[in-house]
């Protein structure tokens, strides 16, 4: 059972984000990036399926400043092969990323065939699309998104998709298929730093040149800014004790305690 996992990095929103000089994009000079959280879940789901059924898990990413750490961590967790698409500027458009991934998957020897392509269902920078559905369309494969469980048997993936209010749906998806993963069945596994270092010594990251694709043009950012604050919380300041006192007071005033 072979699986291809598509991953990308996104800005770490724990850090302060600033708008760049063009007024239309993030200031990248001090930007710290991390793996897209949903892609991390897609990787975990792939590894869980490998644990159960065997087979190979291959990672495919776009080159980015911190991407090698992400890939070696994934290899240390149990992925078999890592490939990064090089020669691309910082890709700000999901549509462009879809074209780069799609072309690379179709044209790079050895990436296909696989039973499943897994990727995060969404990312915090997915302005002009989500990855999985258009990649499935390009390949002519089945697609399901917002997936939280995957069971594989006999050319069929039985998947659970989330709706709202805790209600979920069970679907049968013929393989090969592209799935947009919302959450893996288990939290992403932890891997000790020593194992990552060992992977750095014993494993390699393959590179492929980015295919020539036209940049997406029908969605144009005119301006980017921090959200205009329409209403802001009344801030409570002081030591933890003082803050607790003040909250207690306001709860009493509102008749809540």
């Amino acid at each position: 059972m072979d699986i291809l996992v598509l991953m990308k990095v996104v800005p770490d929103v724990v850090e302060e984000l600033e708008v760049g000089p063009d007024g239309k994009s993030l200031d990248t000079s001090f930007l710290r990036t991390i793996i897209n959280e949903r892609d991390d879940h897609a990787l975990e789901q792939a590894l869980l399926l490998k644990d159960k059924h065997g087979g190979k898990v291959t990672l495919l990413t776009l080159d980015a400043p911190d991407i090698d750490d992400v890939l070696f961590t994934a290899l240390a967790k149990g992925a078999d092969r890592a490939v990064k698409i090089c020669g691309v500027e910082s890709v700000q458009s999901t549509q462009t990323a879809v074209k780069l991934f799609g072309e690379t998957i179709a044209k790079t020897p050895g990436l296909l065939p696989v039973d499943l392509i897994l990727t995060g269902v969404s990312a915090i920078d997915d302005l002009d699309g989500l990855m999985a559905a258009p990649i499935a369309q390009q390949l002519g494969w089945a697609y399901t998104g917002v997936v939280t469980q995957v069971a594989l048997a006999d050319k069929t993936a039985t998947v659970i998709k989330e709706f709202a209010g805790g209600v979920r749906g069970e679907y049968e998806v013929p393989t090969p298929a592209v799935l947009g993963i919302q959450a893996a069945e288990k939290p992403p596994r932890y891997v000790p730093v020593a194992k990552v270092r060992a992977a750095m010594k014993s494993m390699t990251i393959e590179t492929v040149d980015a295919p020539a694709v036209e940049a997406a043009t029908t969605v144009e950012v005119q301006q980017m800014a921090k959200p205009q604050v329409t209403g802001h919380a009344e801030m409570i300041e002081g030591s933890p004790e003082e803050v607790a006192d003040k909250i207690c007071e306001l709860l009493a005033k509102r008749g809540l305690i």
Partner: protein
Amino acid sequence: MAGNIWIVAEAWRGQVSEITFELLALGREVAGQAGAPLEAVLLGSNARELAQKLGAADSVLYADNAALADPVPENFATALAQLIKEKQPAAVLVPLTNLSVDVGVVLAAQLGVPFLNYCKDLKAEGGNLTATCVLYGGKMEAAVTASAKPAIIGILPGVRPVEQGRSDKAATVTDVAVTLAAPKVHFKRYLESEAGDVDITQKDFLVAVGRGIQTKDNLDLAEDLAATLGGAVCGSRPVIDQGWLGLSRQVGKSGMNVKPKLYVMLGISGAPEHVEGMKSSQCIIAVNTDAAAPIFNVAHYGVVGDALEITPALTEKIKAKKG
């Protein structure tokens, strides 16, 4: 603007979803600005009576097909693509719910156009559509022009009040036909919400924990506070993904929609997916170490500080007050 403004009505398990009315309210404004009619599209099987509820639209297209009985996004997208090719709308507004987002992305993929995502507002000006989109977990907003024909736009829940999109007016419904082949993906069954130990939608007091709670052991602090208030603990997505709380305790897009008297948030930054499930709470108090966390734009009261220090202090004070 050439072409109608469409909203894709979401009907689920025999009911029109509330977000449909939010989209109707937004669509009404956009259609007015564009000088174009507002048209709602409802797809379903034996669901024509639901189309009558969409009177806020100038007209409703209703497609009835047995293949539209179950939530198979491919069928809904294929049906919409057929209608779009025939009717040539200028824009198609799609609810950003777990149910409808797949319809939107498959539709956009079939048509080869972008799916404009995370839209929290939309206007038509000078023949263009300008969307305000929420990026980076709510930390930035982008003003974006969408020039694809049609523009497929995913609209976040909460875009307008539900009541604004309701109308007593009987809708003008036109039946339209769609042709659907067997889909690749088959819907098997619904799995109902897992019965939890508590129903958080019924609680007056909720203590919500997020990533900032750091470890599962720290949940005890939240449990103590919730017990003191006479409420329950709930959580945002990362806490559920970690397995620290069960699915029945999740608030937000995939989880529950709650409206308690008091919602205390410990270490939750305020991503749109969470906010949509709790924004109607009567009193919201947020504790977060990040002064720039978007949740402070939603909460009534905010504390920049460490929830792990403030929570036990607050629990003790409330205990003392209650005697």
